[in-house]
């Protein structure tokens, strides 16, 4: 479903952040991307949701290249994905509910559907009791859960999660992993970037290890 062919990425001329990445991800995969700080995990995910463009190489989605896709098409692609960013990117002055609902509203769903679906997703991440609270009044762990809920609520075909459990205790982390496994079983492909090798070992899914921009296995 998603293929990276000889992908290179540099932010500044002369300094490659990703080197010759080759990756093939099938529909329904659950893939961990591991590696130390600065390895290029976030960059790899950004290339997939087109926040950044590849410097060299090709990214194919369902067989067609997205490397040169027109900017106006990007929103439509992103709507079908779920994205958890390392810095959450939540609207801090809106309520938890509004943040999660945003993903559905831009798809034009009906109010009643949005309400039902958002509350259901918030219940899954144990935050339904705080749906009315302004997001800035949550602890960081709680904010991270909101970000996860927003990424899941639109039943994405692809979920990109960048360190989604960095601020969660091990109990919450395993709850989230269980949810991810559940939606993965329903067909969502998951890419999960983390520096936590132990977590990857515990969950026991496929993983790719990055180091200094290269895949090492």
């Amino acid at each position, binding site marked *: 479903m998603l293929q990276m062919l000889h992908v290179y990425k540099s932010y500044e001329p002369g300094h490659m952040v990703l080197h010759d990445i080759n990756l093939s991800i099938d529909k329904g995969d659950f893939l961990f991307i591991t590696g130390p700080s600065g390895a290029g995990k976030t960059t790899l995910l950004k290339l997939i*949701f087109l*926040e950044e463009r590849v410097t060299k190489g090709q990214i194919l989605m369902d067989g067609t290249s997205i490397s040169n896709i027109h900017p106006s098409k990007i929103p439509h692609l992103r709507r079908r994905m779920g994205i958890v960013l390392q810095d959450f990117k*939540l609207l801090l002055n809106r309520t938890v509910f509004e943040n999660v609902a*945003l993903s559905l509203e831009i798809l034009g769903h009906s109010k009643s559907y949005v309400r039902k679906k958002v509350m259901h997703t918030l219940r899954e991440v144990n935050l339904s009791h705080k749906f009315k609270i302004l997001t800035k009044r949550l602890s960081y762990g709680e904010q991270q859960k909101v970000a996860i809920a927003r990424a899941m609520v639109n039943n994405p075909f692809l979920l990109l999660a960048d360190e989604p459990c960095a601020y969660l205790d091990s109990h919450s982390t395993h709850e989230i992993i269980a949810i991810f496994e559940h939606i993965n079983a329903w067909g969502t492909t998951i890419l999960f970037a983390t520096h936590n090798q132990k977590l990857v070992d515990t969950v026991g899914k496929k993983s790719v290890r990055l180091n200094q921009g290269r895949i090492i296995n």
Partner: protein
Amino acid sequence: MIHLITTGSIAFSLAILGAVLCVFLNVDDLVKKWRKEVSIVLFLEDNLNPSKIENLKTKISEMLEVDNILYISKEEALKRLKTQLENQEGILEGLETNPLPASFEIRLKPPFQNIQSIRTLVQRLKGLSAIDEVQYGEAWIERLTTGFRLIKLVALAIFGLLFMSTVFIISNTIKLAIYARQEELEIMRVVGATNLFIKTPFYIEALLQGLVGALLAISILFGIYRLFVSKVQMDSSSISFLPSDVILGIMGVGIGLGLFGSLISFRRFIRT
């Protein structure tokens, strides 16, 4: 808070714009009134018979430039001179015959109330028979014309400066307002909102801000106008408020500025 600032800036800018407009429109009215008083006086030869005078009057009143024409007989002229001399009427007491000529007083239609038109008209009038002399206060008209040009230039300069400033200030206020909300825009983009979805609320907001700003501006102006009229104890007929089409225009400019401001700002702040 940001909404308040933007709306307030629009309101204030438009209020000034409106105030200057109001002053200039009133000055323009005054100038028009003055111009109406521009007249040409034709002194007639003595001892013309009444039908000749009637003929001449019809001929002149049919000229394109002429708005109306008034006949002033010798007796009328003497009466006028008497009032003009005020306290020195004694001077006229010794007269046996009336030395003053009869005359026509001609007022012109507005488009011809300028020095060039008057000069060509005078040339034609001088060619008529039975006309002794043509008087038209050349120096005064010339001074008035220069005055008009000056006022128009000042008006244009101030208005231009004002308009540029208004556009500059409003568009920049909106730019800053959007800048302050950049984070929000970025988040919308991450979850896949289209540009239209992101921009529409901003445009609606800008439109409303422009409208509310314009209404506020007009209210402020009207308040000042009322105060002004009551302060100088004049009836409101001598100073008029902005005509309704200018008011509509201000509202249009307000909305336009709001939208234009957002438009410029978006081009700068939204990548993709």
